[in-house]
């Protein structure tokens, strides 16, 4: 542990988060959030998804900007590679969710982060999505996340940050547990 006089600052306002948690325990309906995304097909396997608003705390919210996500498939899939593949967005979502969690937990535990990087791999056998082998699943058969963290903390404290981040991660939960999905056609 480094003794320092400067306050720990990872840029996360944990006081606000803890205040929100305490308030929401008594008004559980305000804790119901709905996240939204809209997608339009452009051409071939290329599509464009936008995210601009969500609901929660009993009202609708707008992001500061409309965020745009171009998705496509790579050239070896006979596509034009005009965006990341959708499964890469899944890795991006997992990485950013876990990393946000590491920062938040570190702030709460008064651990100063100096750098956090994560490298992710999702392995997949494409016989599944090609419909060539019914025994092979479409999705990832394994996902590996490798964090490299430089922080003013012991190795076990850093491992505990990463473990707690997984425990409280929405995307980690989405990936590791089954979720009901209903797809309708209007």
């Amino acid at each position, binding site marked *: 542990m480094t003794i320092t006089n400067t306050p720990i600052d990872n840029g996360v306002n944990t006081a606000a988060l803890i205040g929100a948690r305490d308030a929401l325990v008594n008004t559980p309906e305000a804790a119901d959030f709905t996240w939204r995304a809209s997608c339009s097909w452009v051409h071939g396997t290329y599509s464009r998804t936008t995210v601009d608003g969500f609901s929660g705390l009993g009202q609708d919210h707008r992001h500061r900007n409309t965020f745009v996500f171009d998705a496509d498939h790579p050239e070896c899939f006979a596509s034009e590679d005009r965006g990341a593949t959708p499964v890469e967005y899944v890795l991006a979502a997992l990485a950013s969710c876990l990393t946000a969690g590491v920062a938040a937990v570190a702030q709460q535990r008064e651990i100063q982060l100096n750098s956090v990087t994560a490298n992710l791999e999702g392995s997949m056998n494409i016989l599944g999505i090609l419909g060539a082998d019914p025994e092979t699943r479409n999705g990832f058969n394994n996902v590996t996340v490798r964090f490299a963290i430089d922080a003013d903390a012991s190795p*076990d404290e850093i491992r*505990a940050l990463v*473990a707690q981040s*997984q*425990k409280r991660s929405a995307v980690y939960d989405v*990936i*590791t*547990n*089954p979720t009901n999905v209903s797809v309708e056609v209007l």
Partner: protein
Amino acid sequence: MRTTTVVIGAGHAGLAMSRHLTQRSIDHVVLERGELANSWRTQRWDSLRLLTPNWQTRLPDKHYTGDDPDGYMSMPQLVDFITSYARLIAAPVHTGTTVTRVTATDSGYDVITDRGTWSCATVVLASGAANIANVPAIAQHVPLSVAMHTALTYRAPDSLDERGVLVVGASATGVQLADEIQRSGRPVTLAVGEHVRLPRQYRRRDIFWWLDAAGILDERHDQVDDLVRARHVPSPQLIGDPEQRSIDLNTLADRGVQLIGRFAGITDGTAQFSGGLANTCTLADLKMNRLLDTFDEWAQTTRRVEAIAPHRFEPTRIPSTRMLEIDLRVGDIGTIIWATGCRSDYTWLDVPVLDRQGRIRHDGGIVTESPGMYLLGGSVLRRRRSSYINGAEADTADLSAHLHRHLDTLVST
């Protein structure tokens, strides 16, 4: 019928409270739906022993005096202990008296039973923390070919058929049942969610010696970091085994138990399990090591233990290939045992003190919203020790004092 205080439940907690009320000359009755120590008698599996060593099994004015202070009481032994305690303190117990309703009145409470109504100024709820087994709603989708049990209905392996057994939950209950069922020759799969790993002994002392000596058990409810969380932590992976053996995911795996992730759902007869097993194991290992760090620091500061140097246990070995699904229709699994926790039954409590989950809102056992009502039992009621038999000692001392002061305010107004 009138009395000053009605205690509901003649288990160890209700009787401990009775002892204090008698010493304070507070007129009271103890109502019991069945016999003394009814839950310990009727709702526990055959092999169960207390997790705490005998020397720690004590109640107000009664200590263990047998010749095996480091052993762990079986249920018949515990029932004897509690029954002889009731005799020792001459508790005014009315057995075979089921409370059907409790209501608030101008002067206190009416406790309505199948054998008449008691009017009283104060009421103590000591009816137990484990009346109802928690079973997830998804259990209704288990195929009919699979039998189901809970920790409250399971008795012994030979009451199960010969097929495989899925034990859901890795608390003390889950690991103990997985262990004994696997030993019986039935292949066990254990679904592991968040759990608490503890060694039976550390540096040749029982883990409860450390928890006691280092002051962990005396941490009060208003000192605990996150009380809601502390009250929901599963019971530690321990067994009251005469050989003092540890039980954890490694010992179970060595015995052939298959470890899988937290039970997540059932789709078309197929049970699904979380892919997050590695992290729940990492969390438990890290947490155990932090606790052992606390013990080592305490030992060094107080210079109490020098016999054996600090050491750490083998990390939990995560199976390299992890199953995420089990088809429940094919017949490999004959029984599912839901070791997913228990809760209290307060359906008879007609006083608005329950939260959304049906739990009583209270401050260390004092039901502040309903003056004169007190709660006993349950996890971390007033202190970490409250989760164990001997917690009733200090809890009833505190709460009987509060109850006495409450009665004084009634008299003076």
